[in-house]
């Protein structure tokens, strides 16, 4: 992190360095403790892989990961009471730990815990969702042997922690370079995780490669945008960019081209259309717990970063870019809602649903008001839990060859397992935005924030598109309840403790945030970004 110091004349740290004093910048360790705990535990996890015998790794890794997430949560909670309302800037101003950052950290930690529970499960799929030895070629004799075995790559736990740590830094990054490093820290483990499915390994590996190539492509956009903005403002700090845009006669071409490229990189991570193309393929191919992790946590991180960049650095120029992001939001909603209609695979369908939701989220993100900020963050929290639980349920419907994700296999599922069908129906209703679920409250607060900010046409389109999207959720409900089950249909696995805990968590939060959202809304609305 020492590379963060860049030569800006205004920066006191620079002048200190220039004076030749080897003084460490002021660090508020207490504020960043949650991140340190998560990243530290990830490092310890790597050591576990190196020194523990294989049979004992799973238990130690699960204990370490869960303990780390809980400890980070406790650290966050303990800090929350004393945190100054206007936020803290630390690590030479590269991290800004303000109210939104704390909220997003909390969200990421809880959602991460849910995802880790899914990753740890070994009862639904004997041995776990993950491959025992990724180096074995798919389709060979050894591959069939590993698929039946009871081992898994326990490296997934430190990888997930690294990704989570990256996401947390991403949400709090106060300059673009830190943001870029965090982006890579969160992305690289995800690329790997995608390729580690125990079954259908070719599909899984294909998704990993696709995600990696396209992710690298998007990172290049981000980096190029960063370079242009540095050229424009002479600094990568968000506040400096805002100051430069405020009143100078520099080249606006640099500013807007840089903003565009930067936005593309962020929108890609948030799977906002038309930069969503990786989403369906990767969601389908990745191991289901990883899909759940990406759908819930990556979305939070991406929109957290987007909110900060737009609010802190580009608020002054919002008149110029707002129309463009309007169009992007509309495209995303339309793509998600219309293409979701023709999907025949449950995971792809939820992927398109996530594209549509990204459009709804973007509406809140471009409102740039306090209400828009708190609404979008609440939406992220609500959507994360619902989609996490939905993917967990998808993982339970299986045939002998693994998950039964084709929709035709879900016909008549309510007759086999009324409980599972009921839970999934509830989650789909939440995704559709029916009242008394968190999905309704999320849409309500985001749309009313947009309306209050004068985006009525966008809200009308969003309402129509959410009505369209409701149709494909409904189709699954109809299929589960009103169709005859196929003779050789899938079985519903009884979930183990971990998966059951994750699903219960997701469903309860979805209900709680629908009925009693006040506490979460209060927290989300407790303060804005530190400028």
């Amino acid at each position, binding site marked *: 992190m020492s590379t963060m110091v860049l030569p800006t004349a205004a920066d006191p740290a620079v002048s200190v360095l220039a004076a030749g004093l080897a003084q460490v910048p002021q660090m508020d360790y207490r504020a960043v403790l949650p991140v340190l705990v998560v990243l530290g535990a990830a490092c310890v996890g790597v050591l576990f892989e190196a020194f523990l015998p294989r049979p004992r790794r799973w238990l130690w890794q699960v204990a370490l990961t869960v303990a780390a997430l809980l400890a980070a949560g406790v650290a966050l909670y303990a800090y929350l009471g004393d945190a100054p309302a206007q936020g803290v800037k630390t690590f030479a101003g590269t991290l800004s730990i303000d109210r939104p950052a704390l909220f997003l950290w909390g969200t990421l930690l809880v959602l991460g815990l849910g995802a880790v529970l899914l990753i740890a499960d070994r009862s639904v799929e004997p041995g776990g969702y993950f491959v025992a030895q990724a180096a074995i070629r798919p389709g060979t004799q050894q591959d069939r042997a590993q698929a039946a075995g009871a081992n898994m790559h326990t490296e997934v736990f430190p990888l997930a922690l690294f990704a989570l740590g990256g996401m947390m830094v991403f949400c709090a990054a106060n300059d673009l370079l830190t943001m870029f490093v965090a982006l890579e820290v969160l992305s690289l483990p995800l690329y790997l995780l995608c390729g580690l499915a125990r079954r259908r390994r070719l599909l899984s590996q294909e998704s990993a*490669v*696709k995600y990696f*190539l*396209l992710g690298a*492509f998007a990172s290049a956009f981000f980096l190029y945008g960063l370079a242009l903005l540095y050229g424009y403002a002479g600094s990568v700090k968000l506040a400096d960019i805002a100051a430069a845009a405020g009143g100078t006669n520099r080249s*606006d*071409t640099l500013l*807007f*081209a840089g*903003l*565009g*490229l930067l*936005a*593309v990189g962020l929108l*890609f991570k948030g799977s906002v259309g*038309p*930069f969503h*193309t*990786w989403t369906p*393929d990767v969601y389908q191919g990745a191991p289901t717990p990883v899909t759940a992790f990406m759908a819930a946590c990556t979305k939070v991180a991406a929109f957290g970063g987007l909110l900060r960049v737009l609010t802190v650095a580009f608020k002054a120029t919002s008149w110029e*870019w707002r*129309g*463009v992001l309007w169009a*992007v939001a509309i495209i995303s909603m339309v793509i998600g809602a*219309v*293409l979701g*209609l*023709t999907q025949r695979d449950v995971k792809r369908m939820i992927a398109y649903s996530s594209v549509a939701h990204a459009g709804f989220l973007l509406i809140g993100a471009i409102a740039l008001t306090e*209400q828009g900020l*708190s609404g979008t963050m609440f939406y992220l929290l609500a959507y994360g839990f619902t989609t996490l639980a939905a993917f967990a349920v998808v993982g339970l419907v299986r045939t002998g060859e693994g998950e039964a994700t084709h929709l035709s296999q879900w016909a008549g599922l309510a007759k086999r397992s*009324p409980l599972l069908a009921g839970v999934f129906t509830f989650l789909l*209703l939440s995704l559709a935005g029916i*009242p*008394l679920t968190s999905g*309704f409250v999320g849409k309500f*607060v985001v*749309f*009313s924030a947009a*309306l*209050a900010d004068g985006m*009525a046409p966008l*809200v009308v389109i969003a*309402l*129509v598109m959410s*009505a*369209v999207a*409701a*149709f494909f959720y*409904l*189709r699954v409900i*109809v299929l589960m*309840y*009103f*169709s005859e089950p196929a003779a050789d249909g899938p079985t519903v696995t009884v979930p183990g403790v971990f998966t059951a805990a994750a699903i219960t968590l997701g469903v309860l939060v979805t209900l709680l945030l629908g009925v*009693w*959202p*006040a506490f979460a*809304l*209060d927290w989300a*609305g407790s303060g804005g970004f530190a400028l």
Partner: protein
Amino acid sequence: MLSSAATASVPAATGIAGYAWVLLALPSLGALVLLVGGRRTDAWGHLLGCATVIAAFCYGLALFLSTTGLPPESRVQDLHLYSWLPVNALQVDFGLRIDPLSLTFVLLITGVGALIHVYSIGYMDTDRDRRRFFGYLNLFVASMLLLVLGNGFVTLYLGWEGVGLASYLLIGWYQNRPSAATAAKKAFLMNRVGDVGLALAIFLMFRYLGTTQYTEVFARAGELPSGALLAITLLLLLGACGKSGQFPLQAWLPDAMEGPTPVSALIHAATMVTAGVYLIARANPIYNLSADGRLLVMVIGVVTLMIGCIIGCAYDDIKKVLAYSTVSQIGYMILAVGLGPFGYALGIMHLLTHGFFKAGLFLGAGSVMHGMHDEVDMRRMGGLARYMPITTATFGLAYLAIIGFPGLSGYWSKDAIVEAAFGQPGWHGWVFGGLALVGVGLTAFYMTRLFLLTFFGEKRWENLTTEDGRAYHPHESGPVMTVPMIILAVGSVAAGAFFAVGERLARWLAPSLGTLEVSEQGPLNAAGVSVLSIVFMVVGVALAWLLVGRRPVPVVRPARVSAVVTAARKDLYANAINEALVARPGVWLARALVYVDNKGVDGMVNGTAALLGGSSGRMRRLQTGFVRSYALSMLGGSILVIAALLAVRYG
């Protein structure tokens, strides 16, 4: 007068009204126990289901009696439960509004609901899933109570979606019938179109007034710019059309008869489908300000009432006829509330009397079906009066009530609406009054036809068997089914006079709806209209008698009929007309999406639907699976984004 319901401050509920949350808690608890409890509750589930609704009725009655004791100005009370959505400028309370209007609905919902719950014990006794059925019914009652008791538009929307969901689950009850699944889906989609309208109206209120609570919205409705005011009235109307089966969203309601008959009686005749009328009556301070909005409400009402009457004449399916009759009667109610201060109370009065006689008619039809192996084709019935005396008597009283026989319920309420419609100045009076009058005649015609075909004439079923080869053995239903029918028949006879004499109901509702005004500007006076409507009714009955009473009725319906009958049999080409209205994006999308899903439900195949379905397919082809094409699309998107940004800056 205009702001009588718009008092800025509403007293908090005290005393017995402070426990009004019990009304919601009881049926919710019932639904929860029955749906979560599973098979363990099979033995006593139906009893619990009835008990919660009856208890809610008793509480509602006590609340009603305590409120009648209050002076009129303190009959409107608010019960704050908790703060649901508190974010900065947006404050949505979860609270209840206890006033004459909501209490009236509470009594209707729990009263008729309790009778239908009891009736369902008998009607559903052979169904393995009877417990789940009662769970859904309880869920419906809870949602409906929330809809009418909520003290803001968002709370109303919550109940609104809840009743839609319960209705959807119950229409699709018979899971082995594909037609039931189709009907459920159609209902859900058409309701969604209406829901989008309602949601937009709520967002508009928030946009312009910063609140969605009744007290504040109504107190400040005058601040709305005229364009927004008109938009809100129209969007609320769209919501009402979806839920109440009004033109152009009426097509789902007759299909909804695929559900069990008690559901048709409770949800699709007496309570849920009147939610649209409630919505407009509740929003009366808004509608009072917009004459154009009211005019459109009247047009929709009168168009729907004519459509319902005409199609009702042509069907042979007893439940379908009753369904179209519901469409048409709700048309009368919508017409009434469209009359503004001249009609709000009349619409509610017709809603209540209709609740009695239509529920009675449906339960009677259910009793006939119960005794006839679920037969619904009236051409295969006839002469049932001898075998089902109680059903015939109660059905007969409800029939007399709906056609407006003098002295019975329907006479008081429908006649008042026709009179008020004639009271409109100028051509409005002639058009709306005249069509309402024609509707009276048509109602008399198709209801008489239905009554004669079912209960009188020769026993056409004697030489017929059911589709699976069983002979018909019509018999009277047991007391658990007949007692609710008898109670409803008493209501069909007496309720109208009870409400109308001395304007008892209108005065009771005045704190919510304003004083009922009587117009003297119309082209005809009250006595003249009254005489005319009796004449039209007699003509209708006589025509029906000439057509089906005197002549033998063929068992198979004749194919060679006049163009009018053909049109009516095809629902007046409602589906075709809807296609012509594709400009309404909501309808367009709903239909197109149905097509995408199912290659055209109900033969609603049309070019526009194919366009969207095709475009989804074509767009899907863009998702090739090749990284290079994905990268290209990202590049293209990026170039567009940057070009657009620069164009905005330098353009």
